[in-house]
Each structure stands twice: as structure tokens, then as C-alpha cells.
């Protein structure tokens, strides 16, 4: 293994020396939030497959824990390794600014993938998000509405109080509930935060049920939250009274869907994020794609992709809904 690392290193070094030769030696790295996060396995799959088909070198690295600063030494190391593209799922919207700026000043293309540094967009070249996050709130409200007959009390069980994506979606949910007469009989009674920890999410869910005995539905737009909420409902045996939905991973939710605890939930294809990121990055580097708002490009399997405001790119237009019929088709 030692030898292999040495050879790889040498090879990489040589490649680095001849960057002008470019494309087949391009190095892409994706830095996840933390290791052991099942979500990133799927994204990584997209990166790996795309790099295989297009011919580039790919590596996935991630710190052991998801603290705000834990990704910094990894970015430093990748700069030092002379990679061409850094994709990153940022652990903090602002703690990475300085080091990302360093990376870009070295000519590295910086993409945030599956999460953005909202408010600090100038420190990355583009962001690749699974869907247009503006529609997530709306779709989720529709989803829970359809499950409870558009009538009754609902609550939101989110991740952390400051989670930027979730907060954006929650704003969307509130606006949708207010604006659309279809949801007039639904009332959002509480928004609570489980900090993406199973224990905390569970106690928050239990507290919701205690505080609001007439609760009809819960939206948990976070994978940890929806699993915890589903488990509470399952163990209390109240699936017919309280509908749980939100954003979840099929692999984590399969059991709950099959036993009827959860009728339906949504997500997108993380795989496609990786797939798209590689195609976009290579295109930008070889000049075939212009990284400008409004320009379009073709990606195999995904069709025509448009670069939206803030250099934001989405892999799909709508959320995918998982239910008992289709859940076995997904393996992530």
C-alpha cells in the first residue's frame, strides 16, 4: 500500500508537472461534510462514474467530524496537491471563505456541491444543487397536504436553527401556506429543531406530540429528522393519525414506507449531483461551457442544463417522490 501510494504520488507529481497537457490528467476532488455520512456515498458514485467515462482522476476526502473548521486543512492539502477542481459540501457558510479564496487564486475551480455558502457566493465559482431550492418548500407543503386532506395542524421538524438550506425551505413553506388558498385550512403550529441528532430530534418530536395533541402532519426536511420522527410515530403506533413526510434517504426510510409508517417522502438524486459536477467542471476548464448566468449545456442522461442566478445549477426540476410502489427501485 505504501508503494502504491508512492507510485500514485509520483504519477500525480509528474502529471502536475505537465498540466499543459491537460484533460486526461485533470484532478477532481470532492470534500464531504464528514466521513460516514451515507448521503455522500451516493454523490461520490456520480463523481466516480463521470470521471471514469470522461477520463479524470477523482478522490473523495472528508474530515472525521462536521465542525465548521474541520474541512480547512483538507482544502489546504488539496491546494498543495495541485488539484484542478475542488467540489465541496461546505460545513459552514463562512468559515471557509479565506481558504476557498486561496484555492481560487491558485486557479482551482471551486464548486459547492449539494449545499452552498449562502451570502458568500463570491468565494466559489458555481454551486450545484439537486433542485431549485425555491420549490422545495412548496412541494413539501403540497406533499403533507395531500397526506392529511389539506386540513389540520402541521409542524416542521428541522435540522439546526441556522441550517441555511432548511431555513430557505421553511420560508418557502410559510409563504406557500399563506399564499395558496388550497392550504387555508392547514395551520403551521410549530417549527422545532432537532439539530440533526437522532436523540434531540426524537425528543423534539415527542414534545410536538405532547404539546399539540391534534397534530395531523409533520414535515421533516432533513434525513435525520424524518427518520427520528418516523420512529416515534412507529413506536407509538399512530401512523394513521399523524402523517410524517419530508426529505429522506430511501435506504433509511425503506422500512418505514414498507410498514406504512410513512406513506411518502421526497428527495432528489444525489448521484446526479456528482455526475453533473464533473461534466460541468471539465466543460468549464476546456472552455466548452461558459460559467455565466443564463448559458446552457448538455449533460448525458440529464439533458439540457441552465446556469441560473448566482451561478446556481440544478440537476432536476422537481423533487422525486418515494412511496411504497417505487422505493425498491432506489438504492441510496
Amino acid at each position, binding site marked *: 500500500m505504501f508503494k502504491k501510494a508512492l507510485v500514485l504520488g509520483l504519477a500525480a507529481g509528474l502529471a502536475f508537472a505537465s498540466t499543459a497537457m491537460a484533460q486526461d490528467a485533470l484532478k477532481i476532488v470532492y470534500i464531504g461534510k464528514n466521513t*460516514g455520512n451515507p448521503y455522500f456515498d451516493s454523490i461520490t458514485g456520480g463523481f466516480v462514474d463521470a470521471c471514469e467515462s470522461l477520463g479524470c482522476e477523482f478522490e473523495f476526502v472528508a474530515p472525521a467530524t*462536521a465542525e465548521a473548521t474541520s474541512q480547512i486543512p483538507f482544502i489546504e492539502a488539496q491546494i498543495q496537491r495541485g488539484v484542478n477542481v475542488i467540489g465541496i459540501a461546505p460545513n459552514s457558510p463562512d468559515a471557509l471563505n479565506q481558504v476557498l479564496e486561496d484555492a481560487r487564486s491558485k486557479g482551482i475551480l471551486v464548486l459547492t456541491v449539494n449545499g452552498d455558502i449562502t451570502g458568500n457566493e463570491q468565494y466559489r465559482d458555481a454551486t450545484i444543487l439537486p433542485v431549485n431550492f425555491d420549490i422545495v418548500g412548496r412541494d413539501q407543503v403540497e406533499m403533507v397536504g395531500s397526506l392529511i386532506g389539506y386540513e389540520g395542524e402541521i409542524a416542521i421538524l428541522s435540522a439546526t436553527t441556522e441550517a441555511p438550506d432548511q431555513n430557505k425551505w421553511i420560508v418557502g413553506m410559510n409563504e406557500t401556506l399563506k399564499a395558496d388558498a388550497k392550504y387555508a385550512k392547514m395551520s403551521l403550529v410549530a417549527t422545532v429543531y432537532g439539530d440533526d441528532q437522532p436523540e434531540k430530534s426524537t425528543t423534539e418530536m415527542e414534545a410536538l406530540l405532547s404539546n399539540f395533541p391534534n397534530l395531523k402532519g409533520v414535515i421533516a426536511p432533513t434525513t435525520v429528522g424524518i427518520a427520528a420522527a418516523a420512529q416515534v410515530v412507529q413506536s407509538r403506533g399512530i401512523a394513521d393519525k399523524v402523517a410524517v413526510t419530508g426529505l429522506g434517504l430511501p435506504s433509511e426510510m425503506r422500512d418505514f414506507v414498507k410498514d406504512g409508517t410513512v406513506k411518502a417522502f421526497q428527495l432528489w438524486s444525489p448521484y446526479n449531483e456528482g455526475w453533473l459536477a464533473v461534466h460541468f467542471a471539465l466543460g468549464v476548464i476546456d472552455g466548452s461551457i461558459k460559467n455565466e448566468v443564463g448559458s446552457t449545456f448538455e449533460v448525458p442522461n440529464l439533458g439540457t442544463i441552465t446556469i441560473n442566478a448566482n451561478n446556481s445549477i440544478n440537476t432536476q426540476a422537481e423533487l422525486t417522490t418515494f412511496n411504497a410502489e417505487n422505493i425498491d427501485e432506489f438504492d441510496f
Partner: protein
Amino acid sequence: MTTLRKIFLRREAGIAVMIVLFCLAVGAVKPQFLTLDQLRIILLLTPLVMIGAMGQMLVIVARHVDLSIGSMLGVSAMVSGMLYRYDATWFGVDMPWWGGIPISIVVGALLGLGNGLLITLFRLPAIIVTLGTLSLYRGLTFIISNAKQIDRQWIPSELKGLAQTSPIMGIPWIIFIAFGVALATYFFAMHTRVGRQIFALGSNPVAAPLRGIKVNQVTLLVFAISGALSGLAGILYASRWGFVNPSNTGSGFEFQVIAAVVIGGASINGGVGTVLGTVLGVLLLGCVSAALPLLGIPGTSQAAIYGAVILIALVIDRSVRQQGIASLKRARA
């Protein structure tokens, strides 16, 4: 004559009173806190901490501390999780759903034994050794799992059922297991020779070898028990939460457990600690955890509360000891 005894009695009574007062206070604001259903919620929050606290109490009684329990929990849960994930066979038979229970306990015991060996062989302070193994064992969790989470679908449903199905009164198995462990710890600590030797060792480590107590062996046993109980907590984590994650599973466990144990009256100077006190300490923390979301207090204050509670318990412990010394002086004078 028995003032000290009364103080210790008061200690446990004191925690019980605190629990009651706390619950009444919360109940005054949120009446639903005083329902049987809420009791179930509180109890469901406690089993892992209670099991870990039993081991930690013994360690603290023996005048040591074990910071690595969260990581031992992680490794032992992960080993079982991997066996479930890859459909291990036992001597030609598919691993039964309960197979993870003995496996996790044994893995935990071995890891704890590792701590104990480093501590006794090289005469190292437990806190530094377990600070090291806290990191080392966490790394092991990543390595054996290849940094992959064991998902819900791989955990046998019977195992998950332990946290959901109930033999009686709607109280899940897992709570009975926790109280069973507490009861077993009580019998071990109070009614076996070696249990008493742990208290003797912590009470006066210098005298212990003079009285024929095999200090090294007892120390090894204590750390092995701490590991084994962490292992049990590990497999029950898989049961309770339905997954095993290399990064999250068990992280921060040590602080909850140490907080519960010191609230329960175990003395960091060794020799003092009761199962009842520890159980009450666990329940008090459980009440606090359950009450916070009900009252709408952000969960971010939980760590601060734990920290304050540890320090307050230390100061109380000291003033109790001071009184003891004062009464000793009076007796001498």
C-alpha cells in the same frame, strides 16, 4: 454517630426531591409533563446513559475515570452492525438477530480490557489513557466500517423491536434491560466479594494490596466491565436508533454519563457511589432533556447545563467530605 450516613442518605433523597420539584415546576407550566405518557418518554431517553453510568460509576468508585466509553460504544455497535450488514454466519448458522448482543458486549469488554492493561501495566493515569483511546477507538470505528453507516435496513427488526415492543404496560424491553443492568450492578457492587473490593480499592488504594486485594486484577475487571456495558449500550443504540454511524454513534456519550454519575453522588475521590444515586442522576438528566423541548428552550443549552451540573456536584461532594473530616476531627479532639 451516623451523621455521615445520614448525609449520604440525604444525597439520594436530595436528588429524588430535586426530580420531584423539577417535574412539578415544569408541570405547572406544561401540565402534559405530568402524564404517564411523558414518563414513558423520559424513560426511553435514559436506557443507554443508565447502562453506561453503571460502568462509569464502578470506574469512578475505583478512583479512575473512563473517557473512552462513547468510542467503545461506537466500535462495539459497529462490529455487530457489520456482521448484520454482511450476513455473518456462526458456525454454519446464520447469525441470529440477538447475535449482536453478546458480540458487542465481548468487543466492548476487550476494548475496556485494553484500557485497563495500559493503565495497570504502565501505571498510567486513566484519564490520559482513555483520552487517547477515545480517539483511537473512534478511528477503529471508521476503519472497520470503511466509514460507511449501517442503515436501518440492516438492523434486524427484532432488535429494533426491543426499543418499541413491550412486555408489559407499554414499557419497551430496552428499559427493562437498563433497569436489569442497574439491578445486576447493585448485586455485583454490594453483594460480591470483588464488588466490595472495588469500593475498598477506591477508598484506600494504599491499604488495598496490604489487605490482599489484587489491585491490578480488580482494576482490569472494572475497565472491562465499563467496556462491556458500553458494548451493551452500543448494540442497544442500534436497537433504539436503528442505525450505526461511525462518526455520531456514541460521540459525547461520556459527558452525559459522567454528569449522571457525579450528580448521583459518586465521589471522584473513590470509594463512594451507589446504584440508586446513579439511577436517580440518570433520571434527573432525562427529565431535563425531556423538559427542554416541551418548554421551548433551545437544545443548545443542554451542554452548558451538563457542565454546570458536573461542577455543582463536585462542589457538593467536597463540602460533604469537609463535613466528614470535620466530624472526624471532632471525634479525635
